[in-house]
């Protein structure tokens, strides 16, 4: 019987099945950030186990609150920084070089097809876009990952989502994943791996695939996987060119991590996007989704473009295209956080930063920033935000605040109108 991508990765990494029901897998990467890693580091020190399994496979970044906003966040950075130094973790990205974890790690070429990756962060599923098995974990699992380079998982039941049709103008990867979450609901893929397939995914850039995989966890999934193909090879080429004779050979090698034709899925669903409209959320659950047309006119106080979902260069390009020659509404404040220094430089070189600034946006350094309501754009009680982020939970961007999730195009249009608006009128 054939295997799915996730099953193949499990098979290649399995080192133990201690009592039948769990698989212990060898890890290729352990990613760390300054919010969840310090407590793991301190606990390992407490146990007299301040060691790391392999400093080259551990990558760390300060990204959630940077520059530090108070003594507590400064201490979190300090613990991570000193630990990275102590253990010779060379790929540690501190202020000046840092960016949102799920954007900067792929950008540095750290994620390859077939890899196993853990991180103490729920959106670790993003890295599945490369055909990797990547999952968010709790502190104890993170500690064991750091110490021994292993993690336990249950067998990966896979939910196959075939995305077909042609994306209409104004509809982006973000709209598609919102539609998926609406149809699956927030528990629809709990403890499963979602495999995104179909002609729409095949045509997507790596950036778009990362947007899709990023929000797999919002449907409950452990990981959201896309099969590796030539797009994956092209994205990674500068990092792997010494390992393969050519791109064809690289593709051949990566193709080992495609699902077999006769692979078994626990669930399958086809979604046709041809008649889709741009979407946004309402309320405090990511499966509360409506067409932008039905939400049009909803007043917002703040617009945020950024995060691990939509802070990449393509996102900034799309938003800038809508904003060009326009000013944001006088009742709105707008913030853009390019997700990494590289994206910031590209945006600068391509004139996008000027477009944002001319429109009236505040441009911040690369950081998670407003996404988690800890710094750089916290909402006041009763305020409403339009954001390209991934979570609209109650209080997510500030106590008593409301967040509407949407694509960068819709967010830009919303900034101009001061109320939720379709981007089409600005791009015709």
């Amino acid at each position, binding site marked *: 019987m054939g295997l799915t991508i996730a099953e193949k990765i499990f098979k290649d990494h399995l080192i133990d099945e201690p*009592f039948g029901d769990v698989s212990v897998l060898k890890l290729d990467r352990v990613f760390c950030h300054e919010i969840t890693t310090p407590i793991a580091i301190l606990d390992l020190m407490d146990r007299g186990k301040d060691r790391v399994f392999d400093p080259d496979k551990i990558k760390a970044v300060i990204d959630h609150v940077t520059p530090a906003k108070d003594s507590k966040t400064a201490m979190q950075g300090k613990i991570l920084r000193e630990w990275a130094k102590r253990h010779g973790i060379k790929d540690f990205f501190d202020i000046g070089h840092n960016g949102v974890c799920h954007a900067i790690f792929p950008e540095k070429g750290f994620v390859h097809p077939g890899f196993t990756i853990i991180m103490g962060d729920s959106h670790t599923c993003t890295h599945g876009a490369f055909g990797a098995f990547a999952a968010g974990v709790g502190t104890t699992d993170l500690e064991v990952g750091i110490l021994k380079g292993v993690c336990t998982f249950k067998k990966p039941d896979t939910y196959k989502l075939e995305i077909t049709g042609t994306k209409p103008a104004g509809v982006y990867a973000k709209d598609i994943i919102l539609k998926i979450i609406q149809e699956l609901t927030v528990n629809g893929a709990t403890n499963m791996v979602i495999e995104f397939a179909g002609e729409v995914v095949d045509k997507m850039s790596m950036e778009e695939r990362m947007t899709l995989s990023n929000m797999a966890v919002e449907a409950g999934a452990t990981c959201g996987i896309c099969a590796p193909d030539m797009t994956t090879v092209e994205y990674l080429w500068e990092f792997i060119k010494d390992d393969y004779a050519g791109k064809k050979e690289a593709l051949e090698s990566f193709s080992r991590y495609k699902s077999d034709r006769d692979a078994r899925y626990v669930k399958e669903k086809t979604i046709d996007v041809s008649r889709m409209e741009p979407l946004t959320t309402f309320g405090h659950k990511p499966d509360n989704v409506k067409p932008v047309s039905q939400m049009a006119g909803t007043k917002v106080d703040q617009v945020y473009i950024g995060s691990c979902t939509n802070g990449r260069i393509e996102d900034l390009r799309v938003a800038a295209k809508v904003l060009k020659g326009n000013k944001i509404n006088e009742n709105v404040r707008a913030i853009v956080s390019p997700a990494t220094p590289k994206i910031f430089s590209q945006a600068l070189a391509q004139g996008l930063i000027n477009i944002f600034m001319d429109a009236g946006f505040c441009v911040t350094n690369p950081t998670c920033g407003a996404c988690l309501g800890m710094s750089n754009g916290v909402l006041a009680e009763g305020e409403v935000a339009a954001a390209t982020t991934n979570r609209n939970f109650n209080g997510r961007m500030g106590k008593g605040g409301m967040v509407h999730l949407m694509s960068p195009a819709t967010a830009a249009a919303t900034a101009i109108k001061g109320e939720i608006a379709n981007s089409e009128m600005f791009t015709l």
Partner: protein
Amino acid sequence: MKNFIGNVLFLDRSDINTDEIIPAKYLTENDKTALKPHLLEDLKLPGFDSAKDLDDKQIIITKANFGCGSSREHAPWALEVNGIHVVIAKSFARIFRQNMFNCGMLAIALSDADIEMIDSEFAHTSTNVSIDVENGIIHLSSEEKEYNIEFSISDFDKALIKIGGWVEYADLHY
């Protein structure tokens, strides 16, 4: 192995969530011991006062679905730093239960009938419990009564608590 013996705190309610066990505002703490005074401070249970009622208690006996809500590991830690290494309930939220064993602590699920029996026989007395992990026996005693109840956990979970949790287990085996 941790200590699985002590005085019982009865929490007569189902669906006690991790926010009630340790409120979200303490998640920024880097040091587990900072959680100590805040265990169960937001618990909604008539007459319960965490400052007083937790005093000299090492074992919690409660109803169904204990530890539901957010999957934070701070919940078992908040118990651990208070010297509470055992929770006995009708059922547990899945992740909370695994987090307990990962930390080398015991989450024991008993049948509804067993919990109701313990409740009627012991709830209003001061009760001591000791647990024999190897043989799967809970020994309850109050001034008037003594009682043994059997329980079972998986071999993996048993291995985890014997060695003191997943970090210790993994360090030894891999």
